[in-house]
């Protein structure tokens, strides 16, 4: 259970400190998330039955997760019957080894890629590079990230941390075909990317993709996208290798009627995304004639085994939770130390990777529990609930454990609480010098305890009356 590119990430608070101090980054994030928030709200408000769609989406995913082994076997049977080949990977290393072997078998040394969270998670590009295979990211934002030797910071818009001027500078420096008079108009930048990738699409023999959904009872796989780079990769090469988390399943094609409404409106705030491609195995005379589906566990079965944490596997990667999260908007995506940033990342990463590393132990605490994420989640993942659940599992410092134990002891008895209050009241003159953490006092005044607690006042004025 590894995400190789993120080994040794610092804990969230430390990584976030630098981001909070970066005013340009905060400006980019505030602008982008502010824009999409309002648009999502409008797209959702257009449907009177959003609450019912959301409940159905949750129910379908919960049902699928409850019978996941059954549906995975069914999917395998149907994909195979339709001319595809199914592979199973316990972890990132196994998935990368399978893909590397499949690419090598074609004799190719280059692949084109459609944006895929699963292969970000496994660090596939790095693994392919070690095997002498170059992976070309074709999604515009992924291309921006790849050209900049950068890391994605958002699920939908991986280069959200960069503004147009930064992207123009990057294209001028790293994209040989970029024109000298390239402006920072997003349309001009998109045109430059189109020209850069066109030849690659037309000559590519092997593509690697992720999947948004797979239909168990037909063996159909779907990719939802906007730019057409997905269609290029899914249509033009001879060989298609799709890496998909085992939780992406839907039982039947009918379920798409729910998810093709929930996903675009939550994600890009559109009634429908520009392009959705669906394919079932191979179709003679149309598209890749070799199709491989790699089913990836990488910590998902462990997440599945936790009755509270399992709901994180309902996620359809829309990123609505990132766009409304006040913590994400200030800390940015990189602080989460994972391809899955924001609220969903804070509950997904520590579950699929285990809660052992410094960054993973800190992620469940990277939230004020404001609940904005749960409110917008199209499959009703109660992210605050899972955060609280994971906090209980996170390793604790002995000093904190002792303090919380003492507080619990004092609060568990009215008499002990009254005694503690009396002590605080008598010491109030010294309260300003009390050992309140600097983290609080740096920017905020500390309340001075009153001379008399409420219960003391009540006893003095009311009791016996």
């Amino acid at each position: 259970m590894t995400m190789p590119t993120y080994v040794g990430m610092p804990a969230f608070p430390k990584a976030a400190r630098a981001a909070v101090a970066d005013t340009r980054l905060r400006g980019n994030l505030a602008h982008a998330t502010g824009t999409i928030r309002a648009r999502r709200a409008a797209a959702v408000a257009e449907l009177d039955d959003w609450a019912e769609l959301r409940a159905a989406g949750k129910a379908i995913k919960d049902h699928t997760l409850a019978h996941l082994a059954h549906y995975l076997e069914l999917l395998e049977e149907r994909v195979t019957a339709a001319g595809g080949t199914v592979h199973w990977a316990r972890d990132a290393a196994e998935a990368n080894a399978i893909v590397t072997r499949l690419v090598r078998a074609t004799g190719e040394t280059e692949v084109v890629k459609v944006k895929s969270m699963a292969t970000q998670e496994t660090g596939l590009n790095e693994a392919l590079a070690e095997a002498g295979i170059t992976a070309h990211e074709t999604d515009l934002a992924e291309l921006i990230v790849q050209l900049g030797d950068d890391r994605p910071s958002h699920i939908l818009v991986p280069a959200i941390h960069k503004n147009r001027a930064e992207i123009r500078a990057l294209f001028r420096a790293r994209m040989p075909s970029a024109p000298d008079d390239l402006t920072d108009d997003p349309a001009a930048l998109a045109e430059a990317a189109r020209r850069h990738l066109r030849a690659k699409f037309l000559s590519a023999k092997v593509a690697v993709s992720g999947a948004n959904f797979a239909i168990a009872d037909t063996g159909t796989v779907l990719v939802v996208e906007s730019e057409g780079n997905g269609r290029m990769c899914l249509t033009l090469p001879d060989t298609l290798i799709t890496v998909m988390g085992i939780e992406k399943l839907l039982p039947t094609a009918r379920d798409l009627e729910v998810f093709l409404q929930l996903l675009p409106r939550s994600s890009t705030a559109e009634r429908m995304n520009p392009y959705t491609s669906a394919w079932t195995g191979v179709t003679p005379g149309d598209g890749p004639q070799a199709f491989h589906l790699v089913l990836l566990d990488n910590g998902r079965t462990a997440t599945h085994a936790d009755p509270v944490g399992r709901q994180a596997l309902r996620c359809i990667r829309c990123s609505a939770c990132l766009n409304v999260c006040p913590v994400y908007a200030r800390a940015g995506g990189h602080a989460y130390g994972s391809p899955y940033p924001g609220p969903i990342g804070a509950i997904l990463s520590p579950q699929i990777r285990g809660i052992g590393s410094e960054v993973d132990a800190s992620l469940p605490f990277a939230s004020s529990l404001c609940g904005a994420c749960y409110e917008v989640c199209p499959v009703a993942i109660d992210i605050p609930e899972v955060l609280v659940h994971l906090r209980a599992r996170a390793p604790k410092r002995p000093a904190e454990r002792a303090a919380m134990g003492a507080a619990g002891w004092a609060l568990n008895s009215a008499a002990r609480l009254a005694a503690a209050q009396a002590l605080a009241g008598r010491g109030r003159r010294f309260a300003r010098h009390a050992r309140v953490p600097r983290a609080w006092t740096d920017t905020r005044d500390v309340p001075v305890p009153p001379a008399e607690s409420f219960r003391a006042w009540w006893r003095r004025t009311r009791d016996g009356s």
Partner: protein
Amino acid sequence: MKIALFVTCVNDTLFPDTGKAVVALLERLGHRVAFPPAQTCCGQMHLNTGYPGEAVKLVEAFTGAFEDCDAVVAPSGSCAAMVREWHARLAARSGRERLAERAAALAPRVHELSELLVDVLGVTDVGASFPHRVAYHPTCHSLRMLKLGDKPLRLLREVRGLDLVDLPDAAECCGFGGTFALKNADVSAAMCADKVAAVKSTGAEVLCAADNSCLMHIGGALGRQRSGVRVAHLAEILASTS
């Protein structure tokens, strides 16, 4: 009506005036207020910091203290939400089936102050007077867990002399989040700074909320900046008659 006050540990210890205001307000409206003396804390801090074992003991203490009461009022959206949304769930997950049943039976009788006034007592004009310009911050748990909606605003609109101004981006979290403010101090402070800027942009003299913990956080920053804006709990404004 006899109403039991769950003052909450934070109000009890740091903000007794809020508790006194609730008593004054409800008595002015002709109700009797009781203060079950065994009460302490709802357990939210322990739960949210990762100590559900400690929290469930407090669920038991709370349930024991209040289960004989017909109506309980808490001048804190966050604590009321903890009781209503979490107590039974937490007890059940801790294997305490009987406690879960008791907590579930009690939960519907526990109300945040504006819920008690508007939904249970059916009053929006509580006869208060507060001639000041006021901005209202809805606080996350009041807004999203309790779904108070415009109940606090309906109460504030009926207060004599009160000039209620819109707070920009009101639904944004202030960044308190209990121990979040300490564990993620930089992000918390950045969120608070934006909330403070929004408050100052309204020209309000007073920032009102239904939760003193959020007000302590925002008020601490308003005070440090010598902004001249003070904070007041909803109960204190509704109790005010001068």
